[in-house]
C-alpha cells in the first residue's frame, strides 16, 4: 500500500477537529510520553492547547536533541543549477509565467560556482532546480552528481520528482539525499497552488518518497510549505507520512524542513500565516514526537530567529545561500527563487555557532562509503 491509499483513510476535517479539541491534559500527557511517536500525542503537541507549553516543549526538545545529536550543527549550502521551470506554482519565483531571465548552469559554470563554494569550506552541497525536463532533466542531473560527488563529501538534491530507476541510478552516481516537499497534503486545494505543469499531479508527488525508499537512497527530506494551508493539519500528515516511511523503508533516514511563506511585499501572501512562536511549537513538536529525526532550517529565516532556534531541536542549517543560478560568482537578486533573510557569510555563521558553544560540522559523510570503484 502506498501512502496515497493510507492517507485516504483519514478525513482532513476530522483530523482538524481532533487537533483543535485537544486539552491541556492531552498536551501534558504528550510531554510525559516524549519520544513515543504516538500520532495522538503529536496532535496534542500541534494543537492550540500546546501554545501555553512552549517553554516546556523547548526544554524537552533541547534535551532530546542533545542526547542524539550533541552540541553540533551540520552545515550545507544550496547550489541552484537552473531556474527554468515548466510549472506554474503560484507561490514560487521560478513560476514559468514570471518574466525573469532564465538560466541553466553549464558544466564550466558549475565548476566555477563549486570552486567558490569549496573556498568557503563546505563539504555538503544541495543541488536545486526548477522542473524543466529538457533543460535540466535526468541526464543533466546525473552528470552534475557524478562530477560533484568527486568534489564534495555529500551531495543532495531538491529537484523534480523522478522514478525509482532514476533514483537508483543517481544513487550509484553519488547521490546521498533527496528533498521533496509535498507543499500541502490538502488534495482538494493542491491544484489551486499548482495549476499548470507536471507538478499538478498530486499523487505522483505524494508517492515520491516511496520511490526514494525503494531506491534505498540514504536520506529523504520531507516538509510542507508553511502558510498554504493550516500548518497544524498539514504537519500532522507529514508526521504520518514519516512514520509510514520509517516502517516501510527502514534503511532510509528522514529529515523535516520548515519552509515558511512570509508576507513580503510583492510576493505570494500566505493564507494561513504561521508566527515565530508557532514555528517554535512546530519544531519542538517534531522533536518530542521523534527524537531521531533530522530537522533543517534554511536561510529563509532571519539570523535572529535561526540563532535562537538552533539549540531547540535543529540539526542542520544552510549558510551563505544564494538562490539564483550562478549567484556565488555573479549575484543577480532578480533571479532569486526566494529572498534570503539570513545573509551572513558562512564564516560569520560558524563564529556565531561557536559562540553558542556548538560545533559547526562541515563533513559528516564520506563518498567512500558508496564503494563506487568496486
Amino acid at each position, binding site marked *: 500500500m502506498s501512502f496515497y491509499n493510507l492517507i485516504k483513510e483519514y478525513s482532513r476535517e476530522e483530523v482538524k477537529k481532533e487537533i483543535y479539541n485537544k486539552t491541556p491534559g492531552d498536551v501534558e500527557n504528550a510531554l510525559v510520553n516524549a519520544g513515543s511517536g504516538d500520532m495522538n500525542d503529536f496532535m496534542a503537541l500541534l494543537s492550540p492547547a500546546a501554545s501555553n507549553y512552549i517553554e516546556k516543549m523547548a526544554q524537552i526538545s533541547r534535551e532530546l536533541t*542533545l*542526547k*542524539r*545529536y*550533541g*552540541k*553540533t550543527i551540520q552545515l550545507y549550502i544550496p547550489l541552484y543549477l537552473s531556474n527554468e521551470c515548466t510549472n506554474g506554482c503560484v507561490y514560487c519565483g521560478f513560476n514559468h509565467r514570471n518574466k525573469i531571465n532564465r538560466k541553466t548552469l553549464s558544466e564550466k559554470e558549475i565548476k566555477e560556482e563549486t570552486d567558490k563554494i569549496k573556498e568557503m569550506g563546505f*563539504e555538503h552541497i544541495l543541488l536545486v532546480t526548477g522542473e524543466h525536463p529538457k533543460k535540466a532533466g535526468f541526464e543533466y542531473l546525473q552528470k552534475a552528481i557524478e562530477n560533484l560527488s568527486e568534489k564534495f*563529501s555529500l551531495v543532495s538534491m531538491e529537484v523534480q520528482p523522478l522514478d525509482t530507476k532514476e533514483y537508483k541510478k543517481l544513487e550509484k552516481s553519488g547521490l546521498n539525499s533527496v528533498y521533496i516537499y509535498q507543499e500541502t497534503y490538502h488534495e482538494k486545494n493542491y491544484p489551486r497552488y499548482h495549476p499548470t505543469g507536471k507538478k499538478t499531479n498530486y499523487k505522483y508527488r505524494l508517492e515520491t518518497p516511496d520511490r526514494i525508499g525503494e531506491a534505498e537512497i*540514504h*536520506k529523504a527530506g520531507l516538509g510542507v510549505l508553511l502558510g498554504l494551508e493550516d500548518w497544524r493539519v498539514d504537519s500532522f500528515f507529514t508526521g504520518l507520512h514519516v512514520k509510514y516511511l*520509517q516502517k516501510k523503508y*527502514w*534503511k*532510509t*533516514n528522514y529529515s523535516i524542513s520548515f519552509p515558511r511563506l512570509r508576507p513580503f511585499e510583492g510576493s505570494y501572501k500566505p493564507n494561513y500565516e504561521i508566527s515565530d512562536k508557532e514555528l517554535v511549537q512546530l519544531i519542538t513538536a517534531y522533536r518530542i514526537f521523534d527524537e*531521531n529525526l533530522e530537522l533543517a532550517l534554511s536561510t529563509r529565516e532571519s539570523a535572529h530567529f535561526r540563532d535562537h532556534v538552533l539549540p531547540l531541536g535543529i540539526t542542520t542549517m544552510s549558510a551563505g545561500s544564494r538562490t539564483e543560478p550562478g549567484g556565488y560568482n555573479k549575484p543577480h537578486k532578480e533571479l532569486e527563487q526566494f529572498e534570503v533573510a539570513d545573509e551572513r557569510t558562512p564564516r560569520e555563521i560558524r563564529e556565531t555557532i*561557536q559562540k553558542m*558553544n*556548538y*560545533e559547526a*560540522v562541515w*563533513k*559528516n*559523510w*564520506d563518498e*567512500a*562509503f*558508496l*564503494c563506487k570503484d*568496486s
Partner: protein
Amino acid sequence: MLEIGKHTFNSRLFTGTGKFSSNQAMHDAIKASGSELVTVALRRVDMNNSEDDLLAHLDIPGLSILPNTSGVRDAKEAVFSAQLAREALGTNLVKVEIHPDPRYLLPDGEETLKATRELAKDGFTILPYIQADPVLCKKLEDAGTAAVMPLGSPIGSNQGLNTKDFIKIIIEQSNVPVVVDAGIGAPSHAAEAMEMGADAVLVNTAIAVAGDPVKMAQAFKIGVEAGRMAMKAKLGRKSNQANATSPLTSFLND
C-alpha cells in the same frame, strides 16, 4: 594491562569524538579521561587532508585512534572503508560498526560477522559493535575478532546496562576482551560493567554532552578504575534472603 590483538592499554576507558561542542572541548575531555583509545567516525574526517582539524586535536601522548565505520550499511561497505582507514590513518585497528537502520543505529549482526571474517583474513585488529548476543560473540571469535563490543542499551540513550543478563553470559564465555559499548550514561553504569568483569567500556555521549565534559571525563575515569578494583577485590555475594525461622533441614541433626 589490557591486551587487544597486539595493542596494550593501561586505561580501560575508551572514548569517542562525537557530539562535543568543539574540537578543543573534545581534546580537553579525552585528555582528562586518561583514555588511551578513542574511536573516530571516518565520515567525520577528511582522509585526504593531513591537517584535518579533528585528528589534530587527538594528538595526545599515549592515545591511539580506533577508526569506526559508522555510516556504512553492509559488510562490503565496511570492508572498503576499513581499508581506506588503514591507508589514511596507518592503523590496523578498526571498530566495525554496521547499522543499516539510521534511526536507532542498531548493529547488523549478520553483516558484522561477514565483515569480521574478511577483515581478519586481511590482518585487521577488529572490535565489532554488536547486540549483546552471546552466540554471535562466539561466532565472531571463530571469525578472528580481537574483542567484542556488546551494547548496554541503544547508542546515545544513557540508559545504562539494560542488557546486563546477556553481557554477563558474554563475559563468562568470552576468550577475547569484552568492551561494553553504547548506552553507558553515568560513571555508576561504567563501574557496574567493570564490576561484572567487562574488560573495558566505551563512553562518548555521556561525556560529550555533560555540562562540564572535563569533569565528567574524570568521573568516568574514577568510575572505571573503582569498578575494576572492586572486581579484582572480589565482591561479596549479594543476599537479600532472610533466615527462615523454622529451619528446613534441622531434622538432619535429630
